[in-house]
């Protein structure tokens, strides 16, 4: 493998993705800022005042890490699925497929683009959160590693969705029917300790629960799950999804006739 060639290719894809995010900032950056501001006002400020304390923190503080993580994963996913499917639909994906770049480089480049958008939006939501409440990062390494891992997992999931998608409907089905319910049921707004045992067990099958809780642990120092489990689960998802995407690309599934 020619590493110089692939490194230049990777830089090209990443810069192309960043330019795309910036060019359509009104679609990529503004909507999550507005949505999250509304969440903080309605759930944090208005309803949160009546809820009081959760996990030892006031409700606004408690939901802030979950809302940051929610915006990171939805934007990482959304960036890759729309960019890669758009390239497939417009057929300019062909310029990458005919090039000598490896399939792994194509995947990593798009995933990096998704992570960058996720982090950008995450930073913006954090800034918005800080106008409503105080946050002190308890474990910076855990916070950073978990946000990067989670973002990568959802960017990879978005890539896979784009590979399978044949029409624009196909890229909105997963976010609507899978991603959103899992996110809302993933402990963003509540601690699973509030749920009956049965629903606690069911909730533990939701990978987003581990991401949100590990990230919350990184910021607030409280979690419903063991952090070690979170790394194992999120790491396994990242590796598994990368392997699946690479296999699909190598076989040409969704990209070659």
């Amino acid at each position, binding site marked *: 493998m020619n590493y110089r*060639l692939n490194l230049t290719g990777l830089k090209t894809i990443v810069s192309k993705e960043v*330019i795309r995010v910036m060019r359509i900032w009104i679609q990529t950056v503004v909507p999550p800022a507005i949505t999250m501001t509304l969440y903080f006002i309605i759930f944090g400020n208005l309803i949160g005042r009546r809820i009081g304390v959760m996990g030892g923190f006031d409700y606004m503080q408690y939901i802030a890490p979950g809302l940051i993580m929610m915006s990171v994963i939805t934007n990482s996913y959304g960036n890759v699925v729309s960019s890669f499917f758009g390239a497939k639909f417009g057929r300019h994906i062909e310029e990458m497929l*005919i090039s000598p770049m490896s399939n792994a480089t194509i995947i990593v480049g798009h995933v990096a683009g998704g992570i960058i958008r996720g982090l950008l939006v995450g930073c913006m939501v954090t800034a918005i959160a800080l106008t409503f409440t105080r946050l002190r990062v308890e474990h910076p390494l855990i916070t950073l590693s978990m946000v990067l891992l989670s973002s990568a997992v959802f960017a990879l999931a978005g890539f896979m969705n784009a590979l399978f998608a044949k029409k624009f409907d196909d890229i909105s089905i997963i976010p609507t029917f899978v991603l959103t319910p899992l996110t809302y049921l993933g402990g963003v707004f509540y601690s699973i300790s509030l749920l009956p045992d049965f629903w606690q067990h069911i909730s533990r099958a939701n990978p987003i629960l581990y991401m949100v809780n590990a990230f919350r642990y990184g910021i607030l120092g409280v979690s419903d799950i063991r952090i070690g489990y979170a790394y194992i689960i999120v790491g396994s998802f990242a590796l598994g999804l990368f392997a699946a995407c690479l296999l699909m690309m190598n076989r040409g599934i969704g990209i070659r006739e």
Partner: protein
Amino acid sequence: MHALSIKNLCKTYPNGVQALKGIDFLVDAGDFCALLGPNGAGKTTAIGIIASLVNKTQGQIKIFGHNLETDPEAAKSCIGLVPQEINLNLFDTVLNTVLNSAGYYGIGRKLAWRRAEQCLSELRLWERRFEISRNLSGGMKRRLMIARALVHEPQLLILDEPTAGVDIEIRRSMWDFLRRINEDGTTIILTTHYLEEAESLCRQLAIIDRGRIIENERMTAVLRKLKGEVLVLSIDRELDEAPQLEGFATKLREDHQLEVSIGEHTTVNALFAALSDHGISVISLRNKANRLEELFMRLVDSNQKEPGNG
């Protein structure tokens, strides 16, 4: 050295359609080769497989000696492709389209800029470099796709109907450009439906029909196979009936025009002499049909009449 070597290439689509039925095809380095065939003959499938956009069912492809399956990086580095359909990112600027393509081939930004300027200037697009490609005309988009395919200086350039829907002026300038890069050493494979384009540009000709190569020879050898041709002459006066010329079949057309069939053993000089004997002067002449077109139709027709090909 072969720029392209294809052995027993087969493609069967999941719906059972056999697009390619064991193609063998060689293109010499530095050659300018036309790949012709009717719609659905398998040209675009073959090109798609060479460019790694379509999975083959069977067969072997080597590009400048590099096996596309076992050494894809080296093989793909040699190819530049201009596809049939516009496949530009319409929201990218002209310059970024070319720079990004260079990046995918591992070319650093500095060199990519230099090459982009060179390619875009040669294709008269440098002035429009900051425009998004959506705003370009059809001909400009085609030229941009050529610039994009050339930025990594491929040894083998494959053009799939590059002049389709392009006006005659741009088509002629593209021909000049392609001739120039071929003279500079780039091997070119061209598919086109404009047979005069193939005849004018290419030295090698392959005709593909129903998934098989039915002709693969030098252009001159192929054209020699024509048993004769039909000329349309503009003459200086109106005739009541076609003149009887020995050795030539003649037919009177409307308005000072005469159609003459010339066999393979007669010459145009003899025709002029015969006409002169009848006191007829020729103002101009042209072929009734493009020579290659005639041959192409004949080959494709006979292939389709063969048992098992119907």
